[in-house]
């Protein structure tokens, strides 16, 4: 079996014991869903709480006097805006302004940053980052093997996690983090996520992953109708899509700039970084395509890679699309020329040879009540 070649997270056995259906995701043996099913997992996260193994994500330490200038040189967002204990979303860009990867940058201190990158791109990211070290006074280290990462997400995430830690979670603001203990395990507790819900991502020693996973399931009342549910990659994807969050390889890639993907807010174009000139030019000259959200009007489901038509011609492509379990609509994201990107505009999607009507709608499709 080729399973032998796949990488495993420290929770692989837990997923199998829970009945997870395992698939090859970017070279990792990961659960796509558990027996409850994707829709139940998705809804439980929106209404109560979901638990996700995201230990496959990559981590890199950047330590030294030049940590901030170095990461600022590589990424689109402005690291000087971060304070200790804060994180932000950003992108690594090529000179062309297209994207090496999207990432989170955590600031532990003025000389210590922590980067969290995508699973499938972590080797490429490391090479890219390392190759730009030059004369910057920084130590770089790969830390992916030093961390498990468990995301606890949903309106009940705070109250469940609070039962396991002395750290006052209510004092951790969105996109901030604290170092504390969860069930006695030293952890980085970050108020971040990829679901559009409130919640936390907990980073800890991979040797303690199983303890943390099991204790969070127990604390969350796994097994009851309103208790926590372990969630697979399929629910992770539908949750992020309803929230219109980008997925590398879909809305972002080495052929797509953040500006086209509605991520101008993470591109601080008054600062200097690799790709800033290309992005300034693009902004000055106008985009040729823009990422939009759409909702199917006709009965049918768009899927990733389907072509978008308007006025009888092909005008773009669907980057991510799926049924939206909470919204109960068939939605998607895709690129169209800016002149077609108006809310309310009708487009057509080629669904296996049938032209089905869809309408451009504002994103995010789903926004939680605060």
């Amino acid at each position: 079996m080729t399973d032998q070649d796949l990488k495993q997270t420290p929770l692989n056995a837990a997923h199998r014991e829970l009945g997870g259906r395992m698939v090859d995701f970017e070279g990792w043996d990961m659960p796509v869903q558990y027996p409850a099913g994707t829709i139940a997992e998705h809804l439980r996260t929106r209404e109560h709480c979901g638990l996700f193994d995201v230990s496959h994500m990559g981590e890199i330490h950047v330590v030294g006097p030049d940590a901030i200038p170095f990461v600022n040189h590589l990424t689109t967002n402005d690291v000087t805006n971060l304070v200790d204990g804060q994180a932000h979303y950003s992108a690594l860009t090529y000179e062309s302004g297209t994207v090496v990867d999207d990432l989170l940058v955590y600031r532990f201190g003025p000389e210590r940053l922590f980067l969290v990158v995508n699973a499938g791109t972590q080797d490429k990211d490391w090479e890219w980052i390392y190759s730009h070290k030059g004369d910057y006074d920084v130590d770089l280290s790969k830390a992916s093997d030093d961390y498990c990462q468990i995301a606890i997400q949903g309106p009940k995430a705070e109250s469940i996690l609070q039962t396991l830690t002395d750290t006052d979670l209510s004092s951790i603001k969105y996109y901030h983090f604290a170092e504390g203990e969860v069930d006695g395990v030293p952890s980085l507790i970050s108020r971040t996520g990829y679901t559009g819900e409130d919640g936390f991502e907990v980073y800890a020693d991979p040797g303690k992953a199983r303890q943390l996973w099991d204790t969070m399931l127990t604390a969350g009342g796994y097994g009851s109708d309103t208790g926590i549910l372990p969630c697979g990659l399929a629910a992770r994807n539908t949750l992020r899509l309803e929230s219109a969050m980008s997925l590398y390889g879909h809305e972002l890639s080495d052929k797509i700039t953040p500006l086209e993907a509605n991520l101008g807010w993470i591109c601080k174009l008054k600062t200097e970084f690799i790709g800033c000139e290309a992005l300034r030019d693009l902004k000055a000259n106008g985009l040729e395509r823009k990422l939009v959200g759409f909702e199917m009007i006709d009965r049918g489901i768009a899927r990733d890679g389907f072509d978008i038509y308007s006025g009888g011609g092909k005008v773009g492509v669907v980057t991510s699309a799926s049924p939206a379990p909470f919204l109960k609509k068939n939605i998607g994201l895709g690129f169209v020329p800016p002149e077609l990107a108006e809310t309310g505009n009708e487009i057509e999607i080629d669904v296996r040879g049938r032209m089905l009507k869809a309408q451009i709608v504002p994103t995010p499709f789903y926004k939680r009540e605060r």
Partner: protein
Amino acid sequence: MANIPEELIYSKDHEWVQVEGEIATIGITDYAQESLGDVVFVELPNEGDNFNAHDAFGSVESVKAVSEIFTPVGGEVVGTNEDLNDTPEVVNDDPYGDAWMVKVKMNNPGELDGLLSAEEYEEYLKSEED
């Protein structure tokens, strides 16, 4: 283990067939619905449409995937299960009962000979897993 009723016959594409006279009723198997996950959309042909054996006559979609459905026997569609438009989840709940998909008036009942008995289908599933 997937549920495989004795009284039906099966295709290697994971459709089941129930034969009454010259009418074949067709749906997808328990194994097929389990593999797909939550079914959210079923697309069926129109009554009066004609298909050859092994043609795709519709599709079943889950949150994650699309699966075409093939007719194991050729003929004219004489009935479709319209209820599946509004309640596609029945395919998960009752694949052999309320989630029947189409009734085909067979052109050549001899085409049924290539299909599998319940026992043979079970063997086939086991061999697929290995």
